[in-house]
């Protein structure tokens, strides 16, 4: 469990299974990701990508399987556990509270306190600084998320995941689904910066071009199973597509 430079994997999963009633969404899926790399995950709709990510982020408890963070075995029974272990996530549904403002959404579950009370001033100031640093344009952080466009919401959800400085791993589920060309490039930059700052990134995306541009390795999922991750330099779009469609065995 170490990469070419001898670094240890920061997050691993072995044999993760998840059943919803009679549906087997995950069948003994494996994954490992190293600090300073982007692992792309691709696969058809229903392949189990989001389910795997929800297992990693503590939303689902796997029916079976073993998970480690920085070498130590972990069991997440809630998203709070995963966050404490340094895993930060952008869920496919974005997990934003529409009626609340941007600043509050950026700090959900982790509001800064001053004495007994939430430090509202600091929250607004830091939220504004964060969005400025990431070049995200919104009128102000008091804007309710309900009045943002789909693309803006996606950027806010991504900003929130990036905000968590203690995060060692950032999980992104379809982070560019609602974005235009320019915005997609912007998210690509954010992902590159995360890698350069030594974080491990797991990137689920349908956008093959985006994945090839930003991932170091690509792992295909099909029918709840995972293939061995392939280095981007050692594979091709054709091979990945063959794996996705099942033309080539995982």
């Amino acid at each position, binding site marked *: 469990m170490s990469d070419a430079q001898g670094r240890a994997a920061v997050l691993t999963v072995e044999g993760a299974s998840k059943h919803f009633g009679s549906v087997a969404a995950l069948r003994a899926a494996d994954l490992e990701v190293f600090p300073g790399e982007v692992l792309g995950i691709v696969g058809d709709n229903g392949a189990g990508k989001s389910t795997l990510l929800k297992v990693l982020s503590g939303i689902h408890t796997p029916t079976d399987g073993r998970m480690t963070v920085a070498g130590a075995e972990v069991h997440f029974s809630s998203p709070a556990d995963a966050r404490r272990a340094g895993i930060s996530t952008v869920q496919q549904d974005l997990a934003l509270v529409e009626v609340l403002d941007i600043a509050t959404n950026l700090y959900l579950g982790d509001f800064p306190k001053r004495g007994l009370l939430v430090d509202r001033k600091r929250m607004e100031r830091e939220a*504004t600084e964060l969005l400025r640093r990431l070049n995200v344009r919104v009128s*102000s952080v008091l804007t309710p998320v309900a009045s943002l466009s789909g*693309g803006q919401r996606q950027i806010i959800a991504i900003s929130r995941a990036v905000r968590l400085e203690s995060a060692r791993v950032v999980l992104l589920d379809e982070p560019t689904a609602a974005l235009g060309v320019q915005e997609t490039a912007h998210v690509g930059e954010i992902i590159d910066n995360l890698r350069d700052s030594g974080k491990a990134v797991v990137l689920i995306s349908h956008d093959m071009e985006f994945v090839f541009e930003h991932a170091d390795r690509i792992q295909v999922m099909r029918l709840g199973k995972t293939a061995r991750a392939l280095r981007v330099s050692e594979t091709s779009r054709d091979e990945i597509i063959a794996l996705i469609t099942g033309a080539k065995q995982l």
Partner: protein
Amino acid sequence: MTTDSTPVIEDGARNVTLGDRVQEILKRQEVTLVGVILVFGIIITVLNPVFATPSNILDLFRATVVYFVAACGLTLVVVAGGFDFSVGSAFTLGAIGATWLMTHGVPWPVAALGGVALGFVVGLINSVIIDRLRVPPIITTLGMFYFIAGAVVLFTGGRDIQPLPDGFNAFGKGTLLGIPVLIWYAVAIGIIFHIVLQHTRFGYNVKAVGGNLDAAVANGISRVRTNAWLYAVGGAIAALAGILYSARTGSGQVSAGGSTVTLTAISAVLIGGTSLFGGVGSIAGTALGALLFATIQNGLAIASVPAQYSNMIIGAILVIAVAVDSYRRRRSLLKLLS
């Protein structure tokens, strides 16, 4: 939804300005309510000047504060997307429990705390039924409402509990600076609940859970823990309202509380702009809702309008308030889709 005329990226967010804050305030239901109460008050005063006398205004406040106290906890519950029919029964239980204890040798402050604890436990049981047995809040708390109402009558044999200790009676009857202490208590409780809802992590979590439960949970907020506190505090404060009412009236009344308190508290919360759809609401709104409720009842009585009309008006206002909330929701949704 994907193509937006204003680019998402470019400059950053601009700083929050005073203008932003003023705009936020003007959009609020509280502002509308103050206007409605003022207009109504002026009309009644023109019809009968007695309405605006200090003694009538104090009466009006005194009549409304116990409902307001009971509605404070309910406000938080509704903001969290829940509901609590059992507040009226928790009110009765608190009153009967505390007065029974203090007439059986327990010092009255301890007895009062005991009554509050009973309400707390009732709320905890509500939350366990809601979260573990997955029974919807409306059903759970309606069941609890009936259960306690029956139990209280069984326990007391339908008889009120009196006389109560002098110290306890004084606690509910005095005045401070010419204003009944009961009103001061309600103001203090209202301020505490306002701070809890608007300025503590718990309050932020309550809004998040009510606004989008899945999102709140995905961000590490515990639904079970939030609900346990919510319903427990809701039950406790309703019980305290019942205890305050006993102190004011000098007896633990079996018929106090019940559906009157439940319905008045619910009306105050909803008229006050707290959304049944969750995530939105305020204690100030609830206070104004309770005040509007009391103003209409008191004002129409003073203007010699039969009580049936005031019920009709309150019914209409309740529906209008929720319709306005629903319209606001739809409008923001439409804006989003266009």
